[in-house]
């Protein structure tokens, strides 16, 4: 497979290490009432669609960027590639607006 790196262009997927469901970026708050249940769901009940899947790839043999790759798990077609750090920063910003308590 070829992943079109946002900064480096097309790179062989073999340069990357796969982690999985991009939901792993949404780590629950450790002190919440239901932390145990939340962490259980976060770590163990991942998305596993036959179709579009947002997933994390690490460019281990490249620029060491974590990427969020949107890929179809049936056709392997890649529809979108983002820098995970940008995604995470955007989420943080959004979360701050929603739940200022944390």
């Amino acid at each position, binding site marked *: 497979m070829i992943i079109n790196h946002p900064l480096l262009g097309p790179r062989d997927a073999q340069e990357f290490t796969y982690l999985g469901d991009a939901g792993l970026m949404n780590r629950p708050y450790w*002190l919440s009432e239901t932390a*145990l249940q939340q962490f259980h769901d976060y*770590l163990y009940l991942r998305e596993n669609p036959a179709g579009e899947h947002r997933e994390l790839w*690490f460019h281990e043999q490249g620029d060491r960027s974590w990427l969020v790759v949107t890929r179809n798990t049936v056709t392997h077609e890649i529809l979108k590639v983002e820098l995970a750090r940008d995604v995470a920063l955007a989420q943080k910003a959004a979360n701050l607006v929603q739940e200022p308590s944390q």
Partner: protein
Amino acid sequence: MSAVSTQQVNRLSGGLVDRGQPLSFRFDGQSYQGCSGDTLASALMANGVRLMGRSFKYHRPRGLLSAGSEEPNALVELRTGGRQEPNTRATVAELYDGLDARSQNRWPSLERDMMAINDRFANFLTAGFYYKTFMWPKAFWEKLYEPIIRKAAGLGRLTGDADPDAYDKGFLHCDLLVVGAGPAGLAAALTAGRAGARVILADEDFLLGGRLLSEAQPLADIAGADWAGQVQAELAVMGNVRILPRTTVFGAYDHGIYGAVERNADHVAAPDAGKPRQTLWRIYSKRAIIATGAIERPIAFENNDRPGIMLAGAVRSFANRWAATPASSVVIFANNDDAHQTARDLQAKGVDVPAVVDVRPDAPEIPGIELLAGAQIVETAGRLGLRSVTVRMANGKTRIIPCGALAMSGGWNPNLGLTCHQRGRPVWDGDLHAFVPGQDLPVGQHVAGAAMGAMSTDAALRSGAEQAGEALADLGFTVPAPELPKAEDAPVSLTPFWHVQGAKRAWLDFQNDVTVKDVKLAHQENFTAVEHLKRYTTLGMATDQGKTSNVGALAVMAELTGKSIPQTGTTIFRPPYTPVAMGALAGRAVGKDFHPTRLTPSHAWAEEQGAVFVEVGNWLRAQWFPKPGETHWRQSVDREVQQTRRSVGICDVTTLGKIDVQGADAAAFLNMMYANGFAKLPVGKVRYGLMLREDGVAYDDGTAARLAEDHFVVTTTTANAVLVYRNMEFVRQCLCPDMDVQLISTTEAWAQYAVAGPNARKLLQKIVDPEFDISNDAFPFMACGEITVCGGCRARLFRISFSGELAYEIAVPTRYGDALMREMMAAGEAFDVTPYGTEALGVMRIEKGHAAGNELNGTTTALNLGLGRMVSGKKDCIGNVLSRREGMNTDDALRLVGLKPVTPAQSLPAGGHLMAASGPVDAAHDQGYVTSAAYSPTLGTAIGLGFVKGGAERLGEQLRLVNPLEKQEMLVEIVSAHFVDPEGEKLRA
């Protein structure tokens, strides 16, 4: 048997063979001569050889069916010794001088094969017969039946000798990959090349031209082969076009990546020294054109498998390209016009064509050749080679026609392999009566020429140019259409005809001996799904993967089920297109080069000392340093331990991972990474740290040294250096993106040595430059700092101890590591310093009760390791929450303990299980297991570490250590894991 037979009785005039370059070769010990340009198949044919192999199941005599890579019958063992390659298709084996080939799957000889007895029992050996038998008595399957079956099965032999040849790998990038250099492929490459695109043109043949090389009809006023030569010449001088002959594109993978094997040296006896036999190319293409032509299909009729019965197009290829005929008289059997061309070409070459048998009542006449229209061949004769065919005439009468060969044609199937590799499904073309590529082609893939159903040369040329134009237009090229010669443009004229009705066996899959009867039986037993049909009858499972047999079998099944062929199923192909030598797929990564080797900074020095090395991951580390007179490794290891504990020892610990962590939030970041806290660690101090996975299981431990408020150096275990770095980047980029942290690995930048033992400080004081005070007060336990050594070389010093002794780790830039080791050894002479290896390191850490890889095995928690306290409840960290799950915190949870044999002499087997001192010995009563064990020269007894249920509370209790695997059982006592210096006075001294 080895008198050279020089007369090539079946050699015709003309062709693309160089009679000026005769080549001698051997087949089954008999010497022959062929010409440059021959394949083994054409050379054998020219020499009048028809019998070339035996079939898989019935061991029926077999000759050539085809002229190409789809050949199911003529498989030979090529070369000898380590280079012996089984199952080579004679049709693609280029002839070279001295070639030595042998027939296979026969005993004692090809003519007299004892296993042909199977043919007599054909009634018993029908499809799936073995599922119904060989079950009585029970034991006999493995003891008797299966060994016999296995011996009879298989084709060629592997010698077991190592393959002496080298294989290369490489990576090619292009705008357009053209697969196949026939008319369509050449036209495509020409179009794209002239447009300036990066083009790769690959063909499995050693000559470009594909079918053009086999056809007598010219393109306009020029011979097909000559036109191919002209195009090749033009492409060859284009800087943007790369031509790869002898290169099989075997697989279509995701996103335009194709796998290809170039045969660099299979056309010579052996590769030149240092040169590869084959090269595996991974081709990255933006677009690809599949121009792989078509494969002719046989007709099933009784005994249609005799040597001499071939595909009509193949006969034409041998006659026109290789100037060879399977016999002096050849009958044609067909359901289409194309085969008539074979008759014409053979006649033109002076081969006798007694008749053309055409199943079509309205078949067109062929001037000068008898046409038997509406007739069928119902039987053949000739055990080791065709003698005659029996024809049922249109009027029902039968007629026997003597002949040495039969050229049959049931029509042509587009060669779809690469279009199916991503599960694309071909569709049925009712006009061609064949499957053509469907709409679900791999992204970026186009199909041209006969492969897409453009069967005439003219249509192939034009579709090649068209497809290239389309593909490149997508990429933004402007593509002028090239002027192409006008060529033969006959429409496909064919009446579907699959098999002649009859009671005897009519072959569909020639290699695996699958007949029409087998398909009928499969249908009868409800194996009607095409995949069931294949798996039950083994149809299409042979080395040709059903290239010539799948469609015919589908047609028969369709008749039986009363469905259409497309309703019955389709033919899907999987990689590789043709079998690929394993050597090519492995490339250079074999033997010692399987993985890179990592050497430590003191490696050269250690070699001088005669150290014994051991693989630790990709690292080579000194395991121990034998001294003269030491005959057993234990002597060396015991000495290294004793010398270190008595005075001082030095160990290369460079392999530990080192990660530089900087930034305003560096401390907060480490708080997140480690179970224990680092925020309050003062500058100039080191702290031991434990890392958990998010599931709460411990996975790595190490230290973090704070060199500045915003600067840490983290060490990891050797095994987890890469993983820890990856996880740190994950936390940095994905979980804590707003933290100010920067990371980089420095594992290789620093040579690092542990200096341990009561005299460690004294030794280092001779190395560390005097302006740095490393006295116990100035540089206490767990201190760290940047210093200089040996007169100004920058270095780092950490006062940490894995051995439990007064110990330091000292680091200098790697290039100085060798020199520092030598300096320290010299400085240590006064103290009887010893280098120590990984064994002594292991002994000392067990004596000290430090957990290592055997304890951090991926299933143990901080609690199990006796480090439960380290998991801070005051802060978040990876693994914090899930480490509190009930199942991981039971009272009888496994705890790390020390173990001592009750009889000191006994050594403890790591991996032994622990049972109560008395009572049953079984899994239900398992109390734990031994993780690490060693002989402790310090205590003069074997010691071990292990996990025991509720271990911490069971000190002093005796258990049975059982090792049924090696019939061992012994009593052990549970003791503290800290065998030496439990109070830690030594390391603070």
